[in-house]
């Protein structure tokens, strides 16, 4: 390819074409990937009403591996996060406003509105996303997916759909657990280091937080739980090229999931703000 373009290397037109070609290939690749994922999403959703697709053992297995398997790291991460966020907010309140009374309310709100949702989402995107893409990717390059199709088994029903349902359930649960653990550690920190009482903290929470906030958190959790497995499976099913292909697909899947979570977080935050 590049040899042909170098023949007329003095022509600026050729230069521009060359640059477009270099930029174009990854863009084209990205566009192809995203289109395939979009289609996969549609295919997965179309299986929702079909009772035969709801295979309980597969779904429970997927919940155990993705949800329960991620539980330790979510708990540990959110515990530390709760401690750190309290310290950070305390520092900000102290430095600029010279008052610490806002800590419980501010921290509590931030945790429920953002932190407690974002942390499990990012962890799921990287852990479950990577594991799923790696697993399905290696199945693809060792021709197991083709074997399934030849046996009359639809990969979307057999592989993607259970993970889709399981991930939404796991994500919702993990989000609630994450919020609880973060709050717990934040309260502990506030009590131990900044001399609040648990009652004060809980009062502040009751004042500022309502059911709508918890509902928003749950919805965000479910949405994130919905897109991550679809992106992961999408990259896995498109994987090709042996060991190297599996590696590339896994990397791209993690990055895409993370970006998708960030963008959706923004969109949902904006939407909820306008609605409530």
């Amino acid at each position, binding site marked *: 390819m590049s040899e042909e373009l170098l023949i007329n290397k003095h022509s600026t037109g050729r230069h521009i074409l060359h640059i477009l070609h270099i930029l174009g290939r990854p863009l084209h690749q990205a566009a192809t990937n995203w289109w395939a994922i979009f289609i996969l999403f549609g295919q997965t959703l179309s299986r929702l009403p079909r009772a035969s697709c709801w295979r309980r053992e597969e779904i429970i297995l997927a919940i155990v591996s993705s949800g329960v398997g991620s539980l330790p790291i979510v708990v540990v991460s959110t515990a530390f996060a709760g401690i*750190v966020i309290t310290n950070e907010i305390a520092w900000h309140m102290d430095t600029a*406003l010279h008052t610490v009374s806002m800590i419980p309310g501010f921290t509590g709100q931030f945790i429920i509105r*953002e932190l407690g949702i974002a942390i499990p989402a990012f962890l799921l995107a990287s852990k479950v996303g990577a*594991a799923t893409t790696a697993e399905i990717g*290696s199945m693809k390059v060792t021709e197991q997916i083709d074997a399934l199709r030849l046996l009359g088994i639809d990969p979307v029903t057999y592989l993607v759909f259970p993970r889709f349902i399981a991930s939404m359930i796991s994500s919702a649960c993990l989000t609630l657990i994450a919020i609880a653990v973060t709050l717990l550690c934040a309260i502990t920190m506030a009590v131990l280091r900044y001399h609040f009482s648990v009652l004060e903290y809980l009062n502040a929470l009751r004042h*500022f937080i309502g059911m709508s906030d918890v509902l928003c958190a749950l919805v965000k959790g479910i949405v994130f739980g919905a897109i991550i497995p679809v992106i992961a499976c999408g990259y896995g099913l498109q994987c090709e090229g042996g060991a190297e292909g599996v*590696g590339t697909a*896994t990397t791209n899947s993690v*990055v895409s999931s993370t970006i998708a979570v960030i963008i959706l977080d*923004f969109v949902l935050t904006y939407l909820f703000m306008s609605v409530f």
Partner: protein
Amino acid sequence: MRLFLQKLGHQALHELGDLALFAGKILRTTLSTHGNMGPVLSQVASISLRSLSTVAFAGVFVGAILVLQFNVILAKYDAQSFLGGLNTSALIRSVGPLIISFLLAGKIGAYTAAELGTMRVTEQIDAIECLGTNPIQYLIVPRFMGIVISSVILLALGLLISVTGSMVVANYSAGINFLQFASSIPKFISIGTFLGGMFKSITYGTIVALVACHKGYTASGGARGVGKAVTLAAVYTNLYIVIANYLTSEILSWLESLSHYFNLLAGGPT
């Protein structure tokens, strides 16, 4: 229960030990070989360029999310004037280094683990060793240094984009114009803030680099092994960064109180 915890403890020690030994090898090789900056610089360029779009994208949106959330919360205290400073400070001090490291871990860490893992399972690393070259020097050191240096560069760029994005969103959606936004910044930010952010960035970058290189280098088992290496790299990096976040925050706040103390001693303003 006790057995489970014991097993967990053993695993943790094993893992940390392996990592420490690997880090030692990298350090020894870096120090003993005469500084050949060529491969390192080319890695820095490649890594920074590849991550730029991701960091820029994420930076804008993360800044936007923080602005929206902080605005809502501050409104309840009637303290919206502090939005600019709070947002910028939060970005530089904690959110910026954290998000950039997560992205770095995802894009570059996973890629490095995959690349090295593939080389390992196709025996390329053995071949390099048999042909008389030290694979740590040839493969690992440039990538390691490349990632660490890039993390600082990407932090600077990411913060710039993030703050700009925040300002724009604040202006159009929260009704805080650019001047108001900027005026509250000096209240929250000092040189220490930037140094703290950089310190965190370098620490997290080192974690990403170390874990990614280690998991890739020790991969085994064909295509499956490469996938496993990438997954392990992703998981462990996140875990260590979370713990490091806590530790670095503690260290920085301790340093801050120390500097306050010295200021007091010197009789200067607090």
